[in-house]
């Protein structure tokens, strides 16, 4: 085992894991309040990436650097975050709320989720073309510093930094604000929260918007890291969902931990066994953990939202 290589794979693992963590929060938040797996969340992520792609292909930034780059990245977050939040909001209103109002069985929600996911995937393919496209360069992605010979790039710093900011922000929102208290109350006992004056529909809507905002931003970062295409949501989505389950579905801090674990496991298995083992090992870890802790790393019977 080569120590330099260890760092070479740890750093991309962490930045990938940070993205999984941010996407996983979207799954776990919605599950917390609705006990529903929003399988279309992966498409919220994809829409976020497309929003950034469309805006930046229009702007066509030429060799941006310095303050210009900072502005462009901020714009990217704003556009993709808004697009993600808007998509998630609409998704809830169109695909889930009508079912909730009519007290539909659980299976109907699941089918609706999968249907919405396919719909969004293929409408994006139809509208924006089916070839992967790169987001134009927003900054010079050079090496910032080295850890034991492993390079840390500007993009990796942005990915990890943004993820940390989003996770801390969300944690504060959920645990320190009145809105967050309403979300936690609905997650623990929706009916009683209603008796206390919490408008459950509003809380549900907000969790979709918050999850969508994070998912859209993650899509932007993922697009910068690779390319943007209509099917790009699938693998990160399913992995982030697995991360949420691994951490204990419904538990926000669990989703963060689960995301980091899967990102790092993926990267290390690509190093040790070859790239084709990436997903195999990540999901093997998921199954192994669940065999011994069926409720996930931080999952408890009562604890939904940490």
């Amino acid at each position, binding site marked *: 085992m080569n120590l330099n290589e260890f760092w070479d794979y740890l750093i991309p693992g962490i930045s990938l894991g940070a993205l999984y963590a941010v996407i996983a929060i979207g799954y776990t938040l919605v599950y917390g309040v609705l006990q529903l797996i929003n399988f279309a969340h992966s498409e919220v992520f994809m829409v976020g990436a497309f929003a950034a792609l469309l805006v930046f292909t229009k702007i066509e930034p030429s060799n941006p650097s310095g303050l210009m780059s900072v502005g462009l990245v901020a714009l990217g977050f704003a556009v993709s975050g808004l697009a993600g939040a808007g998509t998630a909001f609409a998704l809830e209103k169109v695909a889930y709320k009508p079912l909730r109002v009519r007290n539909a069985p659980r299976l109907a929600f699941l089918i609706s989720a999968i249907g919405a996911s396919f719909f969004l995937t293929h409408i994006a393919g139809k509208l924006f073309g089916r070839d992967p496209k790169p987001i134009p360069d927003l900054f010079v992605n050079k090496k910032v510093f080295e850890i034991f010979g492993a390079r840390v790039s500007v993009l990796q710093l942005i990915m990890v930094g943004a993820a940390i900011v989003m996770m801390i922000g969300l944690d504060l929102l959920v645990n320190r604000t*009145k809105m967050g*208290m*309403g979300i*936690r*109350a609905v997650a*623990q*006992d929706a*009916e*009683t*929260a*209603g*008796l*206390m*004056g*919490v*408008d*459950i529909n509003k809380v549900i809507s907000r969790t979709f918007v918050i999850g969508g905002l994070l998912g859209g931003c993650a899509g932007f970062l993922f697009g910068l890291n690779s390319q943007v295409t209509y099917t790009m949501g699938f693998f990160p989505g399913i992995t982030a969902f697995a991360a949420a389950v691994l951490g204990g579905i419904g538990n926000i801090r669990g989703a963060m931990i689960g995301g980091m674990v899967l990102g790092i496991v993926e990267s290390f298995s690509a190093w040790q066994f070859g790239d084709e083992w990436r997903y195999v090992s990540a999901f093997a870890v998921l199954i192994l953990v669940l065999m011994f802790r069926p409720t996930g790393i931080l999952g408890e019977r*009562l*604890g*939904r*939202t940490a």
Partner: protein
Amino acid sequence: MSTIETPDLSKAPAANGDASTAKPLLELRDLQVFYGAIQALKGIDVTVREGEIVTLLGANGAGKTTTLRTISGLLTPRAGEIRYGGERIDGVPAHHVVSLGIGQSPEGRRVFPMMTVTDNLLMGAYRFKKVPQSDLDRVFELFPRLKERRSQLAGTLSGGEQQMLAIGRAMMGRPRLLLLDEPSMGLAPLIVAQIFSIIKEINAGGTTVLLVEQNAAQALKLSDRAYVLETGSVLVSGTGEQLLADPRVREAYLGEGAGG
């Protein structure tokens, strides 16, 4: 403790006509509620006047909890009406009903298990923009036990403490009408006595109380008036004293030594 202390004085309002001339705060008229095809309430009439303690008695499945859940907006009646302070409130969603001044301690207490005692109490005041410390202090005064445990997670409290928390949480919303669903359920007699004396204290402080109970003897001693429900209809109603003396009530609810 309250000024109303002795057993005979506690029934004074109804006996001397104070409460019976008071304005009705809550009126249920021919209220009918269905679960699917099953009719849970077959047209009941209940009146709660300002300042009273009124009890709904009855066996499991009689419709007591259904009645409370309909008042608080969790269920929508198929027919009949609910008037609160003269206004129709049937069909108003639950999160609006609480802001009308109707607080509830639900069946099974339903505290938020992963929140601290203080956060649970703050949830009770969710409808207010700001929660004055004096509101918390008032609840802690009623339930000193909750003050000791204020930073503990509610899920770790004993049954009696959870019941105190559920009532305290409802009081945080400064209710005019307090709905209590079986506050004595599963609690030791000593704790039940304690809870009932606190209910009396809350009532003496000006809050009208609608109580659902299976513990007939104790509840009737506490109440100004009561209604006995049986399979979705009102079987008999009257003052607490009248019902304590009523042979039908004695046979059905006191004969088996229910709590008393």
